[in-house]
């Protein structure tokens, strides 16, 4: 049986881990199979969890989150017959499949939509904990917004510097309100549990919000402009489906292969104008074709569109 290891946020974080969880559930529902899972509570348990699953015969073992990279790199060689999938980070080993997402590309697309939907010419971003991954989101978002409207103002805030920043919806709310008072009328939240507060406040204040990772459009139907989808669920689903025959190697999920994108459904259909859709889809096509390159913050830790 396959196994899945969630990151510290827990599998119900309404975004990243939950997306992974959904992928696993979808696989289970479709195949009727069962899988093992664990939510760790401490960094030291990572290696332990991988080993325990490997020794119990689970195969493949999927792990969601970049923090698994270091322990996996140590452990992978000890279990040559077990296949591993790591999401959000690259581990170079013969039995590991590494899946990384071009979050900056997806963020770019929703950034464009934000700028086009904005009436004030100011859009904003609320990040969770200040880490490079989140800066990557913010940077892509700002680039997209500026592409759609060169005069746009992009405000970016991080919730905090400790893991508590992922679970502080109150502060998320206040950041959103502060951004609103600076003129923002579209806010993109990439902040885990904190994002719940961001989306709530945006809805309460009648501005638009943008969800992250999973499709969060339904949370406030008609008030969430779109969600930046990071198809972790697909990555998990695929890994589990391939089973022990898992294809290893490096796997980039970008706009081109629909690994990232924006969500369009009945909840936001009215918010996304045809013009908006056309522009975004065109940009997506250019990215797929390689003619549009979005700067990746994590490549050199700088951002042309935003200061941190």
């Amino acid at each position: 049986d396959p196994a899945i290891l969630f990151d510290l946020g827990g599998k119900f974080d309404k975004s990243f881990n939950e997306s992974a969880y959904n992928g696993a559930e979808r696989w289970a529902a479709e195949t009727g199979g069962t899988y093992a899972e664990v939510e760790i509570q401490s960094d030291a348990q990572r290696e332990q969890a991988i080993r325990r699953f490997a020794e119990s015969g689970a195969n493949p073992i999927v792990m969601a989150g970049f923090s698994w990279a270091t322990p996996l790199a140590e452990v992978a060689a000890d279990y040559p017959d077990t296949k591993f999938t790591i999401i959000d980070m690259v581990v170079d080993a013969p039995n590991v499949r590494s899946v990384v997402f071009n979050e900056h590309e997806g963020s770019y697309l929703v950034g464009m939509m934000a700028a086009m939907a904005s009436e004030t010419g100011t859009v904003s971003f609320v990040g969770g904990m200040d880490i490079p991954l989140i800066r990557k989101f913010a940077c892509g978002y700002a680039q997209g917004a500026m592409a759609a409207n060169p005069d746009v103002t992009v405000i970016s805030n991080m919730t905090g510097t400790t893991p508590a920043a992922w679970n502080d919806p109150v502060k998320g709310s206040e950041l959103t309100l502060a951004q609103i008072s600076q003129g923002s009328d579209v806010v993109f939240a990439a902040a885990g549990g904190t994002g719940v507060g961001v989306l709530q406040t945006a809805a309460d204040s009648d501005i638009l919000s943008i969800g992250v990772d999973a499709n969060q459009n339904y949370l406030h139907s008609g008030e969430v402009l779109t969600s930046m989808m990071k198809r972790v669920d697909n990555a998990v689903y695929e890994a589990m489906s391939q089973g022990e025959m898992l294809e290893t190697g490096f796997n980039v999920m970008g706009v081109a292969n629909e690994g990232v994108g924006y969500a369009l459904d009945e909840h936001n259909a009215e918010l996304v104008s045809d013009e908006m859709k056309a522009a975004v889809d065109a940009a997506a096509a250019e990215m797929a074709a390689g003619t549009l390159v979005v700067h990746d913050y994590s490549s050199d830790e700088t951002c042309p569109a935003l200061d941190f």
Partner: protein
Amino acid sequence: MDLATLLQMLDATLRLATPLLLACLAGLYSERAGIFDIGLEGKMLAAAFLSAAIASVTGNVWLGLLAGIGASMALSLIHGLASITFRGNQLISGVAINFLAAGLTVVVAQSWFRQGGRTPQLSGDARFDSITLPFAETLRDVPVLGTIYYELISGHTILVYVALLLVPVTWWVLYRTRFGLRLRAVGENPAAVDTAGVSVVGLRFAAVAICGVLCGIAGAYLATALQAGFTKDMSAGRGYIALAALIFAKWRPWYALFSCLLFGFLQAMALRSDVVADVIGFALNGQLLDVLPFILVVVLTGFVGKATGPKAGGQAYVKER
């Protein structure tokens, strides 16, 4: 900085200060009676969870509020048992209560709602609405004062006004009533209260119970007024900040208001990097901005100097060993 920005920051200050103020006043009653309470955080969290849970199940925010108060009171009772009846270490009891709330809220939430330690989103009557004060709309266009009235003073949930009202009420109770006299006395010298024929245990339990009620309101405010539901650890250290505010306020109600507003303002300021940059002339690094309130608290406590609490604070009243 223009008036609108200032008003927005003050508005945020008020919202952020409200849970601090409620928790701070809660701590004030408890500590004035000689019972230290670092469990404010846990009580707030437990109240936030149960208020949201019950509001979500019943669709009635008032029932939610009651339930939140109940949860907080239950923890208060444990604290009372530990520190009054069994004369245990009040700090340990507080630490345990914080752990207990942090764990139990998620375990129970998961077992009830299966949403990963969250309650369902609240909407409609399951949430506190903001109220518009009389004439706010009409006065809205009166320059400055009308704007301040409309933007800053009107338009909060009822709990904000309750919290503000509790400041004079607390002052009055403490300094103008029999109960207040006894409460203050039992925190200074429980033996004096005892030999005057008043029950030390009764008074202290009363104080701890009031503390429970106020923490309950604070928690309910977080989950059902500011937010629309419970997320784990959503109190995010506010109980500790309230405690710091209490010491900073030297255990006095009006000072508590000012220190909570100050702490609220510091937090509101950290949200507005643009304003800070404007005022000081250069942009602060994000991490520095994030901890600025904490640094200022340390600096300010350094300036305020020795804050000595109620004399019998933290000690169990032991007559015979």
